């Protein structure tokens, strides 16, 4: 168990890539879980700014705290201490209703196991979200963006894993969120399909200007990013800025 997190860690302050105000401003975020007899410091004094339009990859081994950070950024979890601002919204002090509204309006989620509603077709899975959004694109347009125009009326059980994940991306971005959070989006896919999915994410980031945060333990994916933030034991141990982003189609692992 580390102590004195901020001082002990290497340059942890991650400076923004773009100009202007950051979308997220995290200061001294700490999250502690009870675990068996003791406790686990999943996040231990994280300072981080994330800017609009950025493509950020969070790298780290299992247990490094990257999922906890993503959950807190997504309004699914609350830190024990520290502050987290999303624009003017204080995510650390928000109540359940504010967090729900925040997820509904501002955040798109992409999960490792897709989490589509099995009883709904591709189009309906997207529609479920566009029905409750303020300024959505049409489900057809969202599915067009992930190259699934020919799978509109298929059920999840009729789609391949990669196709299901692309429906999930369409569902996440149909409401035009400012933030797209992806948790191991290729974790359950083979290389070729995984790359297809990454292309879709890349395209969303580029064409819609959505701040995209991808967590992965696959270091190769980091080459796609503007910024690569590496976590270990709840600390940011390294931040790198790629001079150029590699296209997803050129990746291989």
């Amino acid at each position, binding site marked *: 168990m580390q102590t004195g997190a901020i001082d002990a860690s290497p340059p942890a302050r991650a400076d923004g890539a773009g100009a202007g105000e950051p979308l997220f401003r995290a200061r001294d975020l700490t999250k502690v879980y009870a675990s068996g007899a003791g406790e686990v410091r999943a996040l231990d004094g994280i300072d981080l700014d994330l800017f609009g339009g950025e493509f950020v990859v969070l790298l780290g081994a299992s247990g490094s705290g990257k999922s906890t950070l993503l959950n807190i950024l997504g309004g699914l*979890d609350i830190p024990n201490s520290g502050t987290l601002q999303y624009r003017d919204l204080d995510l650390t002090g928000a109540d359940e209703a504010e967090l729900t509204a925040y*997820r*509904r309006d501002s955040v798109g*989620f992409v999960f490792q196991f897709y989490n589509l*509603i099995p009883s709904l077709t591709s189009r309906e899975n997207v529609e479920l979200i566009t*029905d409750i959004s303020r300024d959505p694109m049409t489900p057809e347009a969202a599915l067009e963006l992930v190259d699934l125009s020919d799978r509109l009326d298929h059920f*999840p*059980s009729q789609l391949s894993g990669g196709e299901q994940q692309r429906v999930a991306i369409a569902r996440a971005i149909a409401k035009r969120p400012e933030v797209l959070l992806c948790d191991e989006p290729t974790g359950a896919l083979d290389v070729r399909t995984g790359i297809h999915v990454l292309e879709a994410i890349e395209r969303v980031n580029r064409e819609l200007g959505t701040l995209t945060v991808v967590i992965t333990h696959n270091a190769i994916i980091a080459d796609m990013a503007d910024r690569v933030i590496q976590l270990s034991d709840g600390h940011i141990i390294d931040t790198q800025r790629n001079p150029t982003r590699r296209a997803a189609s050129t990746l291989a692992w």
Partner: protein
Amino acid sequence: MRGQMIATAVVMACGLAMMIMARSLILSLEKTQEEYYARHRFADVFADLKRAPNALRARLAKIPGVAAVETRVVGNVTLELPGQREPADGLIHSLPEGRALQLHQLYLRRGRLPEAGSRGEVVVGEAFAQAHGFQPGHTIDGVIHGARQRLKIVGIALSPEFVFEARPGDTLPDNKRFGVFWMNERELAVAFELDGAFNNVLIDLAPGGVPRSVMAEVDRLLLPYGGLVAYGRRDHPSASRLEDEIRILGSISVAFPAVFLTIAAFMSSAVLSRLIRLQREQIAQLKAFGYSSRAVGVHYLKFAVVIVAGATLLGGTAGTLLGTAVVQVYHRFFKFPELFFHPHWAMIGVAFVVSALAAFAGVIGAVREAVRLPPAEAMRPEPPARYRVSLLERLGLSHLVSTSFRMALRNIERRPWQSAFTAFGLALATGIPIVPGAMRDGIGHLLSAQWDRAERQDVTIALREPGSATALAEMRSLPGVQLAEPFRSVPVRLRFEHRSRRLVVTGLPADAYLKQLLDASERAVALPPEGLLISAKLAEVLGAKPGDKLLVEVQEGRRPQLEVTLQATLTDYSGLLAYMEVGALRRLMREGETVSGAFLTVDHAHWDQFLAAVRIAPRIAALSIKNSVRKSFQTTTADMIGMITNIYFGFAFIVSFGVVYNSARIALSERNRELATLRVVGFTQREVAGVLLSELAVLTVIALPFGLVIGSQMAAGIIHTASTEAVRLPLVLTPATFAMAVVVVLVSSTFSFALVSRRIQHLDLVGVLKALD
């Protein structure tokens, strides 16, 4: 899981409680009846006559197959009770002096028997004594055979002859206005001018005695003495009522529990198959470690055993408590020295086995599916669920339904059996409250049909002896009488083919106004100049239809026999009744203008004078005041119906609560990942609850109309079962009853759903990001 097992056990317990209650009540009544009849020597054969010398008793005792004979004097007594304007009446029986009663021995609750040689001492039946708060030492003024007499109560007693202590032929007891009494034989015989004679015979059969031949011989011996035809226990007013009650309980104890247990079996099947689906991996591991499929199966059956054991315990306790409460109601109708509730222990054992079988049947399918999986396959997650567009959408109506509604429809279609049983359970819950509703409305209808339309008189007077035109004129001239219509009643045995019943044929004027006869659609019908009109129930009992010729065997006088055509059947709700045009009946009896009594309307301004005049009129045996009878009927039935309603509403609430709870919990668990995902992507708790609710709402909407149909059928079945020769109810189903049933189910379902939907708060939002089912 625990909540669902409890819900299942509770629904199962409802069925068991009903079964145990009914079987235990049957046991209690049968056991008590049997002991009481044996210990106090209830007779097997009964006969009334005009007058026979006591010497005839020895000849009766010699009839082959007779074990014991008791001869008595029995007559009417009219009573004047302080604080009660309307007269009461009763039956008074002789008690032998210097020896104990051989048959129909009294159970003396308090006080003593009249002393030999005493005058005016009576023992009074317990029900009447209780209704008036009489104690030994109190006195009552009575008129016996026209002579006023002060009667001193010395004892309060019960007799096996009056377990159902009501005026013979009455539907329900009216203990304020009818009582039974016993008095020393000599004094009573003198009062009735029967000194050294008797007018009532009781016979106990020896083992192996043949009732039919004994009755025939009794008839032959009594014929010269004005005997009415002998009858057995089947025709005895009190004994047959008790038998009817036991028979009704018998049918309730099978049909209802069966339905509850079926639902409970499906509920336990749904709960356990869900558990087994969740535990696919553990099952695979167990099998990989070398456990046999059988051992795994036995493991899951243990859950079923826990449910069933809990249900049996709960059902046994509830059944015993309900039974104890219902026995209190029986105390009002049936008078035994002691009526204890005897739990039917063997039945509780049977209940355990029956519900265990029901649960096992439900569980075995799921277990079989689980153990059939090869271990390697079971350790992989279940393949993604396959869905298809629902029927409604295939019909091109997709634009009509919202997305969450579409999810609901597709989920229902994907698991048709599970959905069907949820809907079936809800339908049943909807049906249950219709039964007491129909009973209440049936009684309301009965009251208005019988006492507003069929009977328009204020008062019915029965004469002590059939009288002539003079008697009718006397009744007409009583103060306040506005309208008087005579009737003639003749005791007969009505026979068709090999079936027969003892009853009274009533002769009415063809243009009777005060007593109306109602046909099948309850329209008034006029009496035809010839032939019989009889209760539809009587036609059913005899197996006769209009056009058939019935044999009328008159039971009094010269006992003429004649074939009479059954003209039509009538709608009535109590007793087995038969009517003829009075002239035709008199021709059959070869008599003049004889009357047995009259229906009267009385000007209420002269009511007190009317009652005072009736009290001293020597010819009048009994007076029945319509409004009093109606009121007593209402209060007696109101309590019983109130209790039945509460029990049924309780069961309906439990079933719909249990079914909704289990369906919602299973849906919540099966769709946990889906619902949590919706929360993650920004659905509010309320919206997620809406998605979960849609499916149950659709099933409820489907279930309600079926429930109304099922309930109507159940009500029809129960009312048919409870329709006896003594009392019948019409089947009346009103929108109010249906509305109440729907409300009960909606309220309990909503309550249950609200309880489950609170769990949506605790959905693991973070967990779904990672976990794969």
